[in-house]
């Protein structure tokens, strides 16, 4: 299986003028990118702004992307540069925003949440999503749970998971899909029933 074929097929579509394909790339990488940027700025709202800027820069630079490296490697490089530039320009600004760097991560997180313009319902929804997914994973049969965790947490390929679980690759694919389906059924209830934001996932 060719690595990055999925991203590359979406990238090629964007390069041909299909903006919807870029939307799929943003949905796939937004959390990873925000997490990456938070190594530089800590504040979630600011990290989202930088991630947004990085995505827009990436979109504008996509005509020059030839696929020599993986798309996410290229995207991460853009995000890191954008984050570094944001930190430099923030440090040059007369009003210091920076928090006490001796504080622990939790207090940064709290500060970020306090500065955040998101509604309390939004914060509740994030917590609800987390607990729902975790509960759904706990309820999975062990073979499905192992497969999805090895994939998402350890980043193993299907072939590596098949070797670890001593089963065919096709079985791994099926287990991961079934695990996602089980989690998704619970997750959809949160979005559709709970706060009615089924389409607003990004």
């Amino acid at each position: 299986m060719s690595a990055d074929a999925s991203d590359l097929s979406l990238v090629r579509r964007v390069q041909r003028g299909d903006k919807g394909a870029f939307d799929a790339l943003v949905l796939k990488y937004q959390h990873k990118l925000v997490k990456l940027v938070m190594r530089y700025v800590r504040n979630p709202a600011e990290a989202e702004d930088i991630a947004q800027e990085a995505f827009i820069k990436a979109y504008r630079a996509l005509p020059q992307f030839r696929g020599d490296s993986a798309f996410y490697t290229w995207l991460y490089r853009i995000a890191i540069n954008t984050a570094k530039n944001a930190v430099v320009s923030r440090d040059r600004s007369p009003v210091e925003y920076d928090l006490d760097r001796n504080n622990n991560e939790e207090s940064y997180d709290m500060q970020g949440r306090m500065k955040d313009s998101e509604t309390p319902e939004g914060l509740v929804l994030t917590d609800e999503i987390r607990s729902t997914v975790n509960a759904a994973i706990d309820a999975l049969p062990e073979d499905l749970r192992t497969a999805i965790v090895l994939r998402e947490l350890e980043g193993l390929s299907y072939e590596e998971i098949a070797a670890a679980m001593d089963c065919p690759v096709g079985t791994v694919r099926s287990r991961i899909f079934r695990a996602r389906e089980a989690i998704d059924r619970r997750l959809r209830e949160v979005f559709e029933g709970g706060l009615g934001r089924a389409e607003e996932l990004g």
Partner: protein
Amino acid sequence: MNEELDSQLSAMFDDELAPAECELLARRLSRDEHLKARWGRYAIMGAVIRAERGVRLNAPLAGRVNAVLLAEPALAAHTAPRDRSAARLRWWQPLAGAALAASVAAVSILWLRGQAPPAGVPLGAHLTPAPLSVAPAAATQGESYVVPVPKPPTVVVPSTELANYVVAHSMFSTPVARRNLLSAFMTSEPAAAGAEEPQGDVKRIAQ
């Protein structure tokens, strides 16, 4: 929702789908909002499993990016002028190549005609090798040594018919083909070409 399609979507999300299937599914994914929403939820599951703390799982980031990009022209519009100019360049390249080859052929023919003997002189008559000049033994001093004598220029003159043929067909043949034709003609008419090997290429000076 088709289960096979969802299974493919899950595999595509993990970069475990064959490229050909990815192409087809990417097309559908970019247009189908329900499929895209499911794709987004797969990303949320991954973020929760990786315990990405501090990341807001319901942040409207994709929506914000999408809103900004709505005002941007599609990338194909950016690349179209460059593609058109490239296409124009591709169209001119063979013509430019043919024109260059024809120019080289014409210059070659003119040069060859300039090297031809005057009318009435037998072909190759001017190619008589220069006699070897051997220094008299009495004039020699010291040790003997060998001095290479420059070869007389061996000019091969094609016939007028051949020249006319090459000129007339230069537009329809490559330079290599023309060179091969000339070579074939020369080797098939050694007498007419009058290219004789010089009797010797050294001048020995006895000392």
